[in-house]
């Protein structure tokens, strides 16, 4: 019996010893002085490597650590970043960037044209397996580099320490916008070895306004101002990025004063917007997205344009926007969202017209007695359900029977690509603010199927219209051309266009001012000021 006591005591003591010896738990609750800005990320950034990043949580951190040659400022104006100025020659085929002088990386090493060439070459290196190689695919020599037949990209060169020259295979007007993407951020060539074994990203050294000073995976990332930053002096001392996947938790943290910025969702907008202390603190930012019901244009019943048009007319978009998003979205009259080159206020889109819609359905041979039935495939996320359940209800009123088929993302993609899913609820988020990003990937026949044109839309006229628009350097004229393409596509109704969703944020009481653009996810943290 003594043994029993002995054992239990040993277990308890053992527990205490193990408990004390294990790593001290992470705590983000260090001093939070006046100049600390605290915000939440919805998931752990998987990669700090710009060449491998794909989601906005990664971009948010990368944008603060690294710089590209150019960037969009908070007013969505294209400005130089590591490049001071640039010339576009040969009718848009050659870009020459003049780099800023005296820029250093966080570790003190000087920045030069060599780093740019290294980083762009690395992005196209087949060994890096970057998902974003398409960003530079129009550069001459990119194809050979990607195929592994060349060790350099012939179209990228550094004539001297502070000049970078990029040659394209053909004029491609949006190219300069593509260079703002995180994939084109510049890494130090001297750290090539550490970059390739990934140890570099444990303590990354970029040229950006902030350096990483602390990180605990699935918990937080702490950034501190870079005193040698080449741009305006960072307004914050520290940025604390907490990783909080649950909206509910972020909301609670904000309410108890532990966050200075909260993204608002249908689940919390009403409650928080209704509080008197929050008046004037909500920012609605138009975002670069379009939500739609994709229809497979090649398969019945959706190969019939009557049906596609009818479905477009049977949805009361305004009502759903009001009910779900409290009006924080704009009706989509095409695929190009507001604020993006090529968007037009006057584009007609499809009106909510159940009468004409029902007639069109009748022409196609469907009415209440012989109802149109189809399966709507979607991601099995709650946000998707909140919308599709309502759309299902709306369609039901007009005798269209929809069965929802929720799936996990990669299974959904498979089903769409194989043509099993002929109707699907999806959204397209743009990577850069140019209308091309909302036309070429999703409607050009070159991207047929899994390439992005999941509706399998095919129109020779549209293909050539997009092609020629890309050669136009003049922004206004290009916008006009995009608008024309957009309207031509809408006439064919390849999608049921839904809406462009705004992103809404609530500022905490400590925030004095902040500028937010549609690219806020990639903000550099240079406009936030805190109350003292």
């Amino acid at each position, binding site marked *: 019996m003594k043994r029993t006591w002995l054992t239990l005591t040993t277990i308890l003591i053992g527990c205490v010893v193990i408990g004390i010896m294990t790593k001290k738990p992470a705590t*983000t*609750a260090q001093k939070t002085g006046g100049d600390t800005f605290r915000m939440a990320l919805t998931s752990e950034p998987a990669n700090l490597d710009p060449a491998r990043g794909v989601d906005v949580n990664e971009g948010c951190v990368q944008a603060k650590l690294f710089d590209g040659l150019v960037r969009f400022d908070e007013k969505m104006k294209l400005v130089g970043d590591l490049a001071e100025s640039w010339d576009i020659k040969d009718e848009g085929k050659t870009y020459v960037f003049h780099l800023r002088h005296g820029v250093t990386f966080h570790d003190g090493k000087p920045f030069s044209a060599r780093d740019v060439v290294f980083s762009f070459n690395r992005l196209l290196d087949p060994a890096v397996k970057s998902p974003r190689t398409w960003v530079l695919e129009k550069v001459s020599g990119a194809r050979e580099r990607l195929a592994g037949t060349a060790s350099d990209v012939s179209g990228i060169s550094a004539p001297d320490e502070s000049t970078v020259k990029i040659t394209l295979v053909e004029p491609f007007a949006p190219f300069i916008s593509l260079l703002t993407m995180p994939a084109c951020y510049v890494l130090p060539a001297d750290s090539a070895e550490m970059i390739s074994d990934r140890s570099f990203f444990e303590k990354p050294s970029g040229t950006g306004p902030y350096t990483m000073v602390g990180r605990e995976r699935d918990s937080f990332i702490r950034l501190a101002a870079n005193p040698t930053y080449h741009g305006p002096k960072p307004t914050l001392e520290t940025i604390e990025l907490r990783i909080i996947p649950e909206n509910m938790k972020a909301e609670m943290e904000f309410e108890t004063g532990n966050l200075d910025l909260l993204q608002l969702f249908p689940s919390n907008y009403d409650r928080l917007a209704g509080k008197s202390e929050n008046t004037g603190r909500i920012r609605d930012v138009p975002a670069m997205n379009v939500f739609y019901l994709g229809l497979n244009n090649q398969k019945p019943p959706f190969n019939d344009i009557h049906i596609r048009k009818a479905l477009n007319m049977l949805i009361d978009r305004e009502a759903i926007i009001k009910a779900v998003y409290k009006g924080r979205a704009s009706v989509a009259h095409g695929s190009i969202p507001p604020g993006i080159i090529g968007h037009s206020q006057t584009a007609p889109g499809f009106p909510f017209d159940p009468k004409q819609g029902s007639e069109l359905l009748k022409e196609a041979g469907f009415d209440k007695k012989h109802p149109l039935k189809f399966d709507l495939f979607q991601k099995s996320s709650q946000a998707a359900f909140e919308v599709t359940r309502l759309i299902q209800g709306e369609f039901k009123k007009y005798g269209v029977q929809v069965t929802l088929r929720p799936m996990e993302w990669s299974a959904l993609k498979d089903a769409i690509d194989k043509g099993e899913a002929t109707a699907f609820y999806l959204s397209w988020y743009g990577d850069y603010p140019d209308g091309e990003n909302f036309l070429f990937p999703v409607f050009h026949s070159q991207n047929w199927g*899994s390439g992005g044109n999941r509706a399998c839309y095919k129109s020779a006229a549209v293909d050539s219209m997009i092609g020629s628009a890309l050669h136009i350097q003049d922004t206004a004229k290009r916008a006009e051309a995009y608008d024309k393409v957009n309207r031509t596509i809408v006439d064919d109704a390849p999608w049921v266009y839904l809406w462009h969703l705004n992103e809404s944020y609530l500022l905490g009481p400590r925030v004095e001012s902040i500028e937010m653009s549609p690219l806020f996810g990639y903000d550099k943290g240079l406009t936030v000021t805190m109350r003292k």
Partner: protein
Amino acid sequence: MLEYTLKRAAGTIPVILGILAISFVVLYLIPGNPAETLAGPRASPESIARIAREMGLDQPLHLRFINYIVKILHRDLGRSAINDRPVYTSIREKFPYTLKLSILAMFISIISGLIAGIIGALRRGSFIDRLCTVFSVSGISVPIFLTGLILLYVFAVKLRWFPISADHCPNPWLGLLLPAITLGIRSGAFLARIIRSSLIEVLNQDYIRTARAKGLSSWRILTHHALLNALIPIITVIGLDISSFLNGSVIVETIFGIPGLGRFTMESILKRDYPVIQGVVLFSALVFVTINLLVDLLYAWINPRIRDEILAGKS
């Protein structure tokens, strides 16, 4: 004892092999293409095929299984499909948090179980016994996510006694208290039932009655005789607890924001990071097998009669 230890340890080998096989098959059967997930939304079919080849996804099944075991012997659980980090490194980073949480939960479970069990047995049928029964029945029955949400809402949001996220608290133990209570109450309730019934059984035995008749105080009887017998079930429950804590940590760490193994699993589920899920499931099963082995050995050491019976072949 050595013979028993060896025999018992050898018995776990087929189990471990079976665990390996199952966790391998699960990954093999999972639908969807991990290479596609890794390649991102705008990747071409060629680059997806290339990544699949590099991940070894095109080899025949038996070769992949052998490779798999060889790798695991080298502590290589594969790499995350999302960020390419070795799964072993991540687990080693995350496990201490879960361990710490489990230890605290175990304390809470043993203490609450002992108190409720002893009171229930000594004051059998009284109001306070009923109260303890209600505690243990509801502790077992209420799903832990509900307990967690309610505790979070009441004590962290409304009363603000505790931090909302455990990782955001100047005193790390304080932050772990609510999640540990959420986990511990459930096994505490189990323990209370077991202790109560085994105490009642012991207290009704003849020798206890004799002791009582001799005038020994109830407390002395309790600590010197009755409770000693109850300690054996406690050790059994501790073994089971490890499993329930590994289960529960998935939910509790998500609700309370602890960067441990459970939340890591949850994130991997959301991102469909199959190698990580497989690694965590495998790791948890191995931990569980090890703990069970230890518990069995302890059991045999405390109670030599059991050991001798098993060695004699009467399993």
